[in-house]
């Protein structure tokens, strides 16, 4: 410990070591551009980083432990708080894992609605990413623009489930509600306007010298490094690996949908930014197609929203209100919870951040025996250990920005 006096004041975050000129600085955990509660211990040689130790756990809330003490349906709202920028994708990942465990078939209409929600969430998440990263790098205007569009999307989601941020919009076995009347209209209105908005952002950023200088050839991740660190999503695709779980292991109706997976070979920040923009375009393409699919289900009069499995899933509300047996079933399912078969399952879905996997070990009881969340951001934070050494201090902010980490998910 330093002895502070008037000539040598005490700096709590900096320690000087005269001999080899190495400086250790502490970044976070409450840093405005750390995207949450990331703490980095950085060893510096002048401006250059020689060693980086990300320190996480400042948002560890014990969700996996909570899951072991909750019935399956009870855990659904908790998944919202994991990746809180795109809650529905977490809801979906968990619901899908439980459905695979008990072997449920979800009705087509519910699948379409789920896809709509997932893709809207992806847009929200990417817009949020763009806004915050641009803000970190200094482009305040983009922040304001991107938040404006995000608010429209939040309105649409709010029309569906009543919440802006923590949606809980997906249930095990389907979706709770049909989409409201004005939903399609609003979504279409948004999607028609959206390409122009994207162009606005690109006009502001693409030819911006500062933006390019801070993004191009900064934070280059090689293909091997990305694979070895378990990267997924855009982080992986920017390094030249064409891997999108929606394409490779299609779930829901993604195999019926036409979309491209943008890939880049460069692996730097700029490539990731470009991929996010390209993905937003693809997502709006998907959304147009889901609207068509939804109209198809309306035409064919497929009104089922929840799977039919009385052992696991409550009957529709109208049955519960009118039929005694359904009411009893509902009562048992709510008070004691469903009891899935004994077994284990690991299911991965493509969340906006990357591969979101749920591992569930069920022992036939109403509570999962073990639930492990494989959150993409956890590994995207881990890679900072290898990625930051060699870069300059100002690059830290832009690298953390493009890794798109969310701390609810990293620490769980």
């Amino acid at each position: 410990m330093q002895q502070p006096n008037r000539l040598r004041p005490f700096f709590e975050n900096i320690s000087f070591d005269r001999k080899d000129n190495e400086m250790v600085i502490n970044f976070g955990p409450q840093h405005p551009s750390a995207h949450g509660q990331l703490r980095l211990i950085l060893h510096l040689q002048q401006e250059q980083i020689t060693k980086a130790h990300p320190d996480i756990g400042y948002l560890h809330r014990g969700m996996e432990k909570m899951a072991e003490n909750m019935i399956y349906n009870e855990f659904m709202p908790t998944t919202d708080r994991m990746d809180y920028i795109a809650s529905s994708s977490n809801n979906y990942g968990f619901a899908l894992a439980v459905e695979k465990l008990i072997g449920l078939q979800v009705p087509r209409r519910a699948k379409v609605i789920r896809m709509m929600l997932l893709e809207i969430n992806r847009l929200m998440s990417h817009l949020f990413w763009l806004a915050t990263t641009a803000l970190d790098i200094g482009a305040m205007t983009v922040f304001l623009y991107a938040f404006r569009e995000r608010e429209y999307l939040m309105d649409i989601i709010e029309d569906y489930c009543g919440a802006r941020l923590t949606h809980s919009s997906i249930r095990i076995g389907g979706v709770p509600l049909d989409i409201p009347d004005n939903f399609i209209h609003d979504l279409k209105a948004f999607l028609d306007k959206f390409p122009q908005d994207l162009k606005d952002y690109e006009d502001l950023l693409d030819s911006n010298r500062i933006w390019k200088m801070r993004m191009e050839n900064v934070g280059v991740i090689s293909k091997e490094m990305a694979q070895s660190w378990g990267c997924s999503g855009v982080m992986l695709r920017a390094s030249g690996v064409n891997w999108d779980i929606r394409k490779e292991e299609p779930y829901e109706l993604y195999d019926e949908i036409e979309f491209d997976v943008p890939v880049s070979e460069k692996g730097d920040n700029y490539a990731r930014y470009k991929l996010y923009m390209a993905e937003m375009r693809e997502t709006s393409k998907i959304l147009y197609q889901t609207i068509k699919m939804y109209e198809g289900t309306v035409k064919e009069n497929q009104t089922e929203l929840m799977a039919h499995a009385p052992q696991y899933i409550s009957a529709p509300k109208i049955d519960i209100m009118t039929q005694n047996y359904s009411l009893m079933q509902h009562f048992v399912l709510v008070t004691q919870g469903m009891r899935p078969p004994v077994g284990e399952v690991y299911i991965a879905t493509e969340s906006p951040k990357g591969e979101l996997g749920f591992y569930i070990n069920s022992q036939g009881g109403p509570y999962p025996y073990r639930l492990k969340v494989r959150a993409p951001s956890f590994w995207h934070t881990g890679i900072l250990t290898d990625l930051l050494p060699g870069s300059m201090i100002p690059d830290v902010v832009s690298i953390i920005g493009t890794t798109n980490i969310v701390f609810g998910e990293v620490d769980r």
Partner: protein
Amino acid sequence: MAQHQVNYTQDGGLPVALTSVDKVINWGRSNSLWAMTYGLACCGIEMMASGASRYDFDRFGTIFRASPRQSDLMIVAGTLTKKHAEFIKRLYDQMAEPRWVISMGSCANTGGMFNTYATVQGVDRIIPVDLYLPGCAPRPETLQYAVMMLQKKIRAEKAGRAQRPKRLV
């Protein structure tokens, strides 16, 4: 020629002027509440949204600052974990008086849904809180309302005196 001479320093001093000074100071304080960015979890996103385009916090004179030394208001938005607790205390101590704290969201108020080993059950165990804002996550409108209520509270305070010691639950 004045018939009575008022000795301002002895007669309890400038009654009218003092209230006005109070008012002026409180007006200044309440309408330029610079908030510290203390987004801890999901509520932090709503806090950002209230600072962004649609909700536009700047109208209330609330500008987000990244440094505790420049801010009067700490909006604790999100879950405070035990690992983080010492930092919130340190940052609170670094803020200059007068300072206020809004605890935003159920997690900051009482621990919320996270009744677990890792979560502090309410930030008021660590730092004194002026305003509790319920909700999970509270909408930006609610945060704006909270700030307006805080402004009201500040206007009712005496400006001249140092702040009274605040309560810790």
